[in-house]
């Protein structure tokens, strides 16, 4: 099904030049070209456009974004009120940061699948492409959503809570990025699962929390290291755990997603 009668530049032409630089060969040689072309066509391109669709949809309707933002503001306000003028140790503050992040994720990350179910567009998507690009596209969407959310939460937290001082910013921000990836990977597959259930909202944190516990413990520990001013190398163990967690869950999800998605 590789038609060569297309008008205009094929997406492959761009990659041809990159390929040439690194491999000193043309992409025209058989198997490599077919594999790359197949992967592009059947996975990455559809996934990218599904990510774009979800993003454009969110930006246009802003349902989730408004609610999420208000949730973050509310949660932080409650914490500020309850802390009062009390000086709390940075251990506890690290923990509370991730509690806020966890519950904010629970408020916002199921939307990508639940909105498709509620509007009845699941069949439309099933007819457009294979299951895997749908999962990957929505995973990427959730990653960017979590990352932006966590950056906002962290910045507000740093601004508003005096006792929370980061002595190793490199560790802290790496933790935020890797932690967001890990949270996105765990929450996306669970979101796909609960989207098919009856009591979606309450079920989401119930299913997510046990899965995410090792991840939460790791990021809380890494954040604690960041507040104590540890060297970057000391946190490498934590980062390795976060990366392997993300890889393991994403791989398992890609294999299992088809069973969740198709009827």
């Amino acid at each position, binding site marked *: 099904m590789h*038609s060569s*009668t*297309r*008008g*205009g*530049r*094929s*997406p492959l032409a761009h990659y041809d030049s990159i390929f040439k630089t690194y491999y000193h060969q043309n992409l025209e040689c058989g198997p490599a070209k077919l594999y790359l072309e197949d992967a592009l*066509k*059947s996975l990455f*391109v*559809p996934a990218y*456009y*599904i990510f*774009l*669709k979800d993003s*454009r*949809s969110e930006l*246009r*309707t802003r349902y989730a974004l408004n609610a999420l933002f208000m949730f973050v503001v509310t949660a932080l306000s409650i914490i500020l009120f309850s802390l009062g003028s009390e000086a709390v140790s940075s251990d506890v503050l690290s923990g509370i940061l991730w509690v806020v992040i966890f519950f904010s994720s629970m408020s916002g990350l199921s939307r990508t699948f639940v909105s498709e179910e509620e*509007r*009845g*567009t699941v*069949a*439309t998507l*099933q*007819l*457009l*492409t*294979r299951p895997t*690009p749908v999962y990957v596209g929505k995973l990427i969407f959730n990653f960017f959503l979590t990352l932006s959310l966590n950056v906002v939460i962290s910045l507000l937290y740093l601004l508003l809570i005096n006792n929370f001082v980061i002595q190793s910013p490199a560790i802290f921000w790496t933790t935020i990025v890797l932690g967001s990836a890990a949270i996105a990977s765990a929450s996306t597959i669970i979101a796909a699962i609960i989207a098919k259930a009856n009591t979606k909202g309450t079920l989401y944190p119930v299913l997510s929390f046990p899965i995410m516990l090792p991840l939460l413990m790791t990021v809380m520990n890494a954040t604690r290291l960041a507040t104590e001013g540890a060297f970057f190398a000391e946190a490498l163990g934590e980062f390795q755990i976060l990366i392997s967690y993300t890889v393991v869950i994403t791989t398992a999800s890609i294999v299992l997603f088809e069973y969740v998605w*198709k*009827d």
Partner: protein
Amino acid sequence: MKQITLSIESISKEFNRRIIFENISFSLSQKDSLAITGRNGSGKSTLAKILCGLLTPTKGKISLSMNEKEIPAADIHRHIGLVSPYITMYDEFSGMENLLVFAHIRNLGSAADGDPERLLRQFGIYERRNDEVRTYSSGMKQRLKYAAAMLHHPEILILDEPTANLDEEGAATVHKLMRVQTGVGILIIATNDAKDLKFAVHNIDLNKVNSVA
């Protein structure tokens, strides 16, 4: 000329242990047309969904092949266009945006560049192409579904209640489409409407389940 064949063997479907239908078999190829008829609840839509790959049958096998080569189940969607009451468009996007999104996700490439406009004109919703689907009437939504179904030039067209919500002009366009489709591919319609049934040569009546085309 691409030779396409769709065959199903001994398909049965149960929901929560209630049997909807069982032991349905037929084979269709180029220029065949099939009508699925039956009273409400007899499983017309269910059979249509199974043919598209939206539902897996409880028992039995479906196979689609092109030029003698079998097409894997994961790729069936590339060759099938479905219009049905339970297909929904994205409300917050305009008609044109919906078609563009579908073309991109299907990865149709630049070969499909002029198609959205052409299809919007063919189905008579070109003037409202930049309005959000939320504002469309049910007839216009139905027309948009046709445009979306034809976007990838599917060899097999499955229409569940083809002329639902359509006025005379819309119905005429659909009938013309059905005639063209039977000339180049496979047409399957699920309906009880006598005017639509004229376009199908074969018939499966789900009221008497074991009929074979």
